[in-house]
């Protein structure tokens, strides 16, 4: 096994390049912290504009949370779990499989949930079953 394996040190598509793997780790930590602080602040303030406007059946605020979550997930996987340094084959075997199955499941199940909501709302069905 190779001990001093090469790490790719550039993030943001090369816009930010770190000197060493350790500084990259701290840099990613700072980025993740900033994103978390933004999320918590938005979650506490809940600006009216973002709450009252919808896009694809979800509030804008929720879309922001989801995008920021995926952003954090990307950096945790790519830099903490070293996905950036793995071969393309391993990366795709893991990420594409999981992403496809999860997106498929979530889409179907949420559409079904919304349908049942409509049935409750418009039909004469008791609140709980």
């Amino acid at each position, binding site marked *: 096994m190779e001990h*001093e394996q090469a790490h790719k040190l550039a993030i943001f598509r090369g816009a930010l390049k770190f000197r060493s793997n350790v500084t990259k780790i701290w840099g990613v930590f700072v980025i*993740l912290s900033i994103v978390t*602080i933004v999320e918590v602040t938005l*979650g506490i303030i809940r600006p009216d504009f973002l709450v009252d406007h919808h896009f694809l059946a979800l509030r804008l605020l929720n879309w922001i949370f989801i995008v920021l979550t995926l952003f954090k997930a990307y950096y945790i996987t790519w830099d903490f779990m070293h996905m950036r340094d793995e*071969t393309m*084959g391993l990366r795709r075997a893991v990420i594409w499989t999981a992403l496809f199955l999860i997106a498929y499941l979530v889409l179907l*199940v949420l559409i079904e949930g919304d349908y049942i909501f409509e049935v409750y709302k418009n039909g004469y069905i008791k*609140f709980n079953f």
Partner: protein
Amino acid sequence: MEATVVKTGTEEKTWGGGNEPLKASYGKMMMWFFIVSDALTFSGFLAAYGFSRFKFVDAWPIPDQVFTHFPFLHGVDAPMYYVAFMTFILIFSSVTMVLAVDAGHKMNQNKVILYLFLTIIGGLIFVSSQAWEWSTFIKGDYGAVETKGGQIIQFMDNEGKRVALRDFATAPTTEERTEQTKENGIWYKNEAEYLPSISFEQVKAGFLANDDLLVRVQHKDEHGHHIILNRQESIAKVVNDGALVVEGANLRHNEYGHPLFADFFFFITGFHGFHVATGVLINCIVFFNVIVGTYERRGHYEMVEKVGLYWHFVDLVWVFIFTFFYLV
């Protein structure tokens, strides 16, 4: 170690098993595939949560109003600060873990020991925070009344502040609770499944005596706020529909709103907490192996890397739970 590795003597030949297209060791690859399957398990749970939430989308509890506590700050309204703190703890323990992996690549035993130790401490702080969060959630705060239809109604004063049941319910009457037994010929009645500290009759009497009190229902208006009824509607709601007092949350009743919210909260954060707890355990085993020099003798610290993958995965899942339980 070497004894368990089967070699065919054809390692250099492409069709003899010598070709490693993914350039990852067996153990690391299997850890990745385990993580994929575990991610699908968690997604199944979170998707089920999303399903139930979409089903009751206009009556789901608002997390800002559920998780408002911070240890040692009693009565202070602190929405989400504590869970944000927990998130930081977990991200930070991820950082120390990846630093330990990095030190392992450099064969720096002492640094691996230090960083693994910090990771374990972070994990323990996280698990105990989650225990605190659970106990606060189970104990509840203001209490609520459940209607005959299974909906939760909560009490507010006319300034829009929550009012606890114990603050307005009439004093308990002195009637004795007698336990009926089969010996007395009463076989058809069972004890109530759980006994709140005050009865619904006391809450109702206190509510009718106090003109400032209003009722907040589970259903939300178009801005996503729970609807607060006026005094007449409130009285009608309590008198006609009220059925039992709910304090805190369990798997059947939940003072914060729909019982499914509590069920999924217990199930998903519990499953995640179980992952953190096993992660701490595995980290401890690897930690002692590092101390006694197992990996130093083996010549590489790949085991730290593998357990690190698991630990980061646990952090990754928390990022999603944080979003879908506390933010959205």
